[in-house]
């Protein structure tokens, strides 16, 4: 190994050469990423602290079990695994873009950067769908002695403890007419029964039409759950978004021949470091929110 021999003899700290054998921008990108790791780490640790301080915490498989186009099918972990693989693959295409840059292969850089951008955009699309699904979801909760239909937000979420049927029956009596109407229509969302107009029914008929066993009524979950989920995945999503923007800028600069004239593609390497970091953070977000 020729390099290890040079390493032995080189006096790194005598001036004139980089002691870390690295150009300034790349070194600073590393230190930025380290500080960003602490930011994400602090967020995730704060989430962990709150989670450990609660007697009850929602089961991720109850919360994240939907898949686009699959309706109400119970598919835990399915969609998030798609998101995870999309991000891993886009990280691989970024490695290939950086390598093409090392070889001063402009076409290769352009090709792999485009794939990376597509991967990033696909991930953002998945996240948008998931957020939309959680916010607009209609779940029955028992709050203040009556039933209500809510989605997941920063103010509350429907992921609390399951409520026994007797309590649901009692709560039905206090529930508003509009909610009852919604409930009775939720129960018959499919088949011929969906066609009947429930708004014509009287209050008592509505009460009878509701199938309590199918409602899966829960209490409201810990308020912090929504805030942490939207806050941390949102902060990560913002990193993905800025990564996609950076990659688009890199793509335009490559196509304009900026790096070709400069003689090196080191900017791609720095953008690549940032992009891999985004993937790295997702690995931990995936662990903390979806797996455990």
């Amino acid at each position, binding site marked *: 190994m020729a390099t290890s021999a040079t390493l032995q003899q080189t006096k790194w700290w005598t001036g004139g050469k980089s002691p*870390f054998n690295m150009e300034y921008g790349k070194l600073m990108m590393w230190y930025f990423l380290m500080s960003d790791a602490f930011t994400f780490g602090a967020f995730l640790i704060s989430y962990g602290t709150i989670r*450990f301080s609660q007697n009850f915490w929602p089961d991720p498989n109850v919360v994240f079990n939907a898949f686009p186009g699959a309706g109400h099918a119970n598919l835990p972990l399915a969609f998030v695994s798609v998101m995870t693989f999309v991000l891993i693959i886009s990280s691989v295409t970024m490695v290939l873009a950086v390598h093409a840059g090392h070889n001063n292969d402009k076409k290769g850089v352009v090709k792999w950067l485009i794939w990376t951008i597509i991967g990033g955009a696909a991930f953002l699309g998945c996240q948008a769908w998931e957020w939309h699904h959680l916010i607009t979801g209609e779940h029955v909760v028992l709050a203040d002695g009556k039933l209500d239909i809510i989605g997941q937000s920063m103010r509350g979420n429907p992921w609390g403890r399951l409520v026994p049927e007797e309590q649901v029956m009692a709560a039905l009596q206090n529930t508003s007419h509009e909610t009852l109407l919604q409930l009775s229509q939720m129960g018959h969302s499919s088949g011929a029964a969906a066609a009947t107009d429930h708004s014509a029914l009287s209050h008592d008929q509505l009460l009878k039409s509701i199938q309590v066993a199918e409602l899966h009524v829960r209490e409201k979950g810990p308020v912090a759950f929504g805030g942490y989920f939207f806050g941390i995945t949102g902060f990560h999503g913002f990193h993905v978004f800025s990564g996609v923007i950076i990659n688009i800028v890199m793509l335009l600069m490559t196509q304009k021949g900026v790096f070709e004239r400069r003689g090196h593609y080191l900017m791609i390497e720095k953008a690549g470091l940032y992009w891999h970091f985004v993937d790295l953070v997702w690995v931990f977000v995936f662990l903390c929110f979806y*797996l455990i």
Partner: protein
Amino acid sequence: MQHPAFEEVTFQHHTDDATFKKKVRNTTILLSIITIIELAIGLIIYTMHKGDSPNELLVLMFKGMVCILTLAKAYYIVSVFMHLGDEIRNMIMTIVVPLLLFIWFIGAFIWDGNSYKNLRNTYDKHYKESTLPAKHNGGH
């Protein structure tokens, strides 16, 4: 080989295309396999929670395994994809040593959260009864 644009950079890491392609392919396969194992463990935990009385210790062990697998994934992303493994040792240390703070950070704060829960359960019985998960209530 010196860097074309930065004369203070003494040598460049250079791998030939074949070795590089092989390394990237192997790492991709490894990351995918680890992710699939993680998902499998996630499904195991899911089926255990569906049961009437999940073995808490076993669930905790599976969760610990997922954490270890995640750290392995993080290691491969940083050392192969980000090429940190190829850098000079001193440079690696300026990144890795500060990150050791996380050992204290995670331990101390999770301990704190847990202690808060225990104190509240000890001194606020109403809180304990109104929030503790009822038995046979884990699943759907």
